[in-house]
């Protein structure tokens, strides 16, 4: 049986997780442009599931007294892959929707990779 402060701690993380998850999914509907829509799920929802996993870890620790590392593995994996996914989806948006003239200069010799209307390399 959990003490009151233990239940309060787990409940706090659960409520924070629920609010962040809801904000992330709502932002995906509400935000106006594709690049701003990218922010909501990749940041808020990742934080939400981080809170849920911390709550699960604490609940497991308080009920059985054993620290479980499964949740830490899931958290690590999700926090590592969320920026990669965001990068890929931003790349898709640049590739499909942005005209090439609207992109800022890269500042180097090489042009934007994956931008549309690029001349096809015959060796590719």
């Amino acid at each position, binding site marked *: 049986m959990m003490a009151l402060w233990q239940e309060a701690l787990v*409940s706090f993380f659960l409520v924070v997780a*629920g609010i962040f998850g*809801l904000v992330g999914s*709502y932002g995906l509907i509400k935000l106006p442009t594709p690049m701003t829509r990218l922010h909501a799920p990749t940041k808020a929802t990742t934080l939400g599931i981080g809170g849920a996993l911390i709550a699960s870890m604490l609940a497991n620790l308080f009920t059985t007294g054993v620290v479980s590392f499964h949740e830490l593995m899931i958290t690590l*994996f999700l926090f590592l892959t969320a920026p990669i996914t965001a990068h890929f989806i931003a790349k*898709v948006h640049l590739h499909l929707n942005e005209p090439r003239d609207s992109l800022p200069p890269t500042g180097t010799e090489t042009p934007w990779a994956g931008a549309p209307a690029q001349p096809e390399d015959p060796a590719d």
Partner: protein
Amino acid sequence: MMQIALTFAIGCFTLGLLMNLWRIVKAPGVGDRVLALDTMVINAIALLVLYGIAIGDAVYFEVSLIIAMVGFISTVAYARALLRGNIIE
């Protein structure tokens, strides 16, 4: 108290899952659909974790780890298919 918080969190993530479904049906572009699918995977993992807390069983963590890996790979595969036209060149 924890039961109420658990119900609240499950309700929030379920609502988020329904919003993602709505986004997939009514999305302005294909990139938004991929993003909504990725968010759906994350929300499904959160629901699995919360269910694991509710029943006090640790079996579901392996399930959610595998779903996280499959979700990441599928998102990258979708993005690559949109970027390059095929997945493995």
